[in-house]
């Protein structure tokens, strides 16, 4: 897909199936031990429905969406995410992206994460340099 980079095109989606086990793995690997990600009672005590995904885990998923698409064709230059809603384990988390601008080797994309109802709980953007 050497020249098939056109504004408006969607990139291949990535569907993740996070589990509480994965939240604990991410807590350990990232060093973020905030209890809302693995302690159900603590999470409910701060008015959450239960443990929730780390925002940065969702950013990690969207990062994978981008690097899977980029492959060895280019370099990720910047990546930005805004967390608009919570996500809970044992529900699919669907990562999607679309090319918004192509200017020579510079490509801009919007990326987002959807919960199982299609609600966009994470919004983001990225810039990629091809070549």
């Amino acid at each position, binding site marked *: 897909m050497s020249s098939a980079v056109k504004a408006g095109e969607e990139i291949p989606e990535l569907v*993740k199936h996070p589990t509480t086990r*994965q939240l604990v*793995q*991410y807590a*350990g*690997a*990232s*060093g*973020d031990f*905030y209890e*809302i990600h693995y302690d159900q009672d603590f999470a409910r005590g*701060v*008015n959450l429905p239960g443990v929730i995904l*780390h*925002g*940065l*885990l969702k*950013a*990690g*998923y969207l*990062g*994978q969406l*981008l*690097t*899977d698409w980029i492959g060895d064709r280019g*370099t*990720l*230059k*910047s*990546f*930005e*995410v*805004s*967390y608009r809603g919570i996500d809970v384990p044992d529900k699919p988390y669907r990562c999607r992206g679309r090319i918004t601008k192509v200017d020579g080797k510079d490509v801009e994309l919007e990326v987002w994460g959807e919960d199982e109802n299609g609600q966009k709980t994470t919004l983001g953007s990225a810039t990629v340099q091809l070549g």
Partner: protein
Amino acid sequence: MAATDVVDRIKAHIGKTQKPVTATVEAGHLKRFAEAIGDPNPRWLEEAPPTFLVAIAPTSYHLDEAEQYGKGWLNGGNRFEYLEPVKVGDRITATGKVGDVYEKSGSSGNLLFIIFETEYTNQHGHTVARLRGTAIRR
């Protein structure tokens, strides 16, 4: 203590650079991080995936005063800027500061926004990445 006093005390941190944190990018750490995300790309055995630097140094440091505002933390967003690749064996130094602090009224009460900015440099003194994080107290 009145909330405004707490906010003023947190605002006093704006612009103050924190003590830098230095760590080596270890192969085992990269592997565990990629496994936690569930990203099987073999590239991450040698190179840091896009969000790995948060694992080298926290995106926010502990602010005692902030704990006195609201009940808990939320992550509002993150922005990464990449200048050079980060590879296994690199010595990365992270230097963080509070970029901004402001209050907003939300549907269920006031929220306090704390913007943390971190710059990452490698063993050659090159800036490899910058990270901006929006932490919210609610």
